[in-house]
């Protein structure tokens, strides 16, 4: 007898995109940024220092394999080959293991640079909510990092924590944000110190007769409180910009904005790629520098 595979509610969509109005053959400089994160890996291609294409995949067991999967996605989308790329920068926690990257740059610097591109030079505070860590970053008008704080010790306030609740409630992860507002009254947060405890509390609330949506709201609030504390420690100065996968969860984002009293800058971009985009932009600058040409502003 065939068993239906258990649905993986945490599983977010992988994908790729390319600017339909441009072609890489028209560009003078083609650069690639690869961000191997703990949960997702991204590849971004920039043409002459402008975003052109990207792909997002789930991180595999090895860093190299993950980077190759991400590159494959963007190459298939655009028809590019590796030999067409002038300069490659790796970032993310798997950055040190990438043999094909010319240089590795920390993801904090890359998120600063990427957010500066996506949100513009007025961005001063960046929240990067990743799969297994969370960073509050302060930058100057050029996207250069002036200060940061980071939690990478604990799953509370990270994307992995959100995946845990999606799986527990059997609600697809993309639906968590919208559903967290479909409630009569905002509940108190569950534990914001430990995902394991938050999970036990969520189960207890369900048994108390809470709706799934109300439990999701309590969980989103816990995550927002945890992250807001990190932001307040580094100090929030507008404009405020959110990068990383959880920026897509409106339930967490709106609650963070409410707690810190500052709205996040809207952006048309997929902010999950901010790190890889920053890496591709650094790659552009580094390539120009290596060729001895004056660096574009």
């Amino acid at each position, binding site marked *: 007898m065939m068993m239906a595979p258990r649905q993986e509610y945490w599983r977010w969509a992988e994908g790729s995109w390319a600017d339909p109005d441009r072609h890489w053959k028209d560009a003078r400089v083609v650069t690639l940024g690869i961000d191997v994160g703990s949960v997702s890996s991204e590849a971004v291609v920039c043409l002459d220092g402008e975003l052109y294409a990207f792909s997002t995949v789930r991180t595999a067991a*090895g860093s190299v394999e993950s980077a190759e999967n991400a590159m494959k996605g963007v190459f298939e989308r655009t028809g590019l080959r590796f030999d067409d790329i002038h300069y490659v920068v790796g970032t993310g926690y798997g950055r040190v293991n990438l043999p094909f990257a010319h240089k590795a740059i920390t993801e904090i610097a890359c998120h600063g640079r990427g957010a500066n591109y996506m949100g513009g030079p007025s961005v001063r505070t960046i929240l990067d909510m990743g799969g297994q860590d969370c960073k509050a970053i302060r930058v100057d008008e050029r996207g250069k990092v002036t200060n940061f704080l980071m939690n990478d010790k604990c799953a509370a306030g990270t994307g992995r*924590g959100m995946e845990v609740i999606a799986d527990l409630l059997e609600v697809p992860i993309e639906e968590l944000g919208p559903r967290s507002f479909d409630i009569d009254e905002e509940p108190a947060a569950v534990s914001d110190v430990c*995902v*394991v405890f938050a999970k036990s509390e969520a189960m207890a609330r369900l048994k108390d007769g809470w709706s799934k949506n109300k439990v999701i709201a309590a969980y989103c609030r816990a995550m927002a409180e945890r992250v807001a504390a990190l932001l307040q420690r580094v100090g929030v100065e507008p404009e405020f910009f959110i990068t990383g996968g959880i920026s897509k969860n409106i339930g967490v984002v709106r609650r963070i904005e409410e707690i810190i009293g500052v709205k996040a800058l809207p952006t048309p971009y997929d902010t999950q790629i901010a790190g890889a985009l920053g890496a591709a932009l650094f790659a552009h600058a580094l390539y120009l520098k290596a060729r001895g040409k004056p660096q574009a502003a």
Partner: protein
Amino acid sequence: MITAGIDVGSKNIKAVVLRDGRIAGEAVGSGGFEQLARATELLKQAVRAAGCATADLAHITATGAGRTAVAFAHSTVTGVTAGARAANHLFPGARTVVEVGAEESRAVKTDGAGRVLDSAVNEKCAAGSGSFTESMARALGMTLEEFAVRSTQSTARIPMNAQCTVFAESEVVNLIHSGVDPKDIARAVHDAIASRVAAMVRRVKLEGEVVLLGGMAHNPGFVKCLKENLEVETLLIPDRPELADALGAALVAADRAGAAPGGRP
């Protein structure tokens, strides 16, 4: 005098009926969501096993994370106090009590007569508690017993980078994929928990003999790693370490019943 102690833990509920300082009946079952109903049922079982009736109980004391759910208890006591009381009842003179349950772990320093002098609890983080071993055994496709025994056979020491239980799960999956021997992974998991617990013990300062209580005391893999981390030759473990807090609560119940003549205060 007959008293009862009920320990409502984060995973299981334990009931002990105490007659003149000895365990006369006991029952253990999963807590589930109807904690009060389950506690009532388990107490009935323990009373039946002791060959008496609920009406014979002079005093009932509840303990554990869910102790306030036990509406029929005459009083409550914290797990720290109950554990210390049981530890010194079983091992008079022992000064350090370590207790590792499903979601809680703690280190307690006692005066040797069941009174608490100092304690450290993992109140903010599940790393260093037992539920971790269950999910890891599942990830490796082993029973909990097999997981524990295989761990003791490991000779290699693999460090776990993750401090967080949730992150460690992904790390273990990666170790499995990269072909690391399951017995070495099992040991790494137990070692990670033991090092967290040992840090708590150091906060209260290890002194005298060490008693290990809680369900994790049944796990030889964890016991071995804890001995290494604490640098001790022996750990004092009772026959039923998971019943310790319920026993401690029943002992406290006897104290309180004795202090209030007529039984029920």
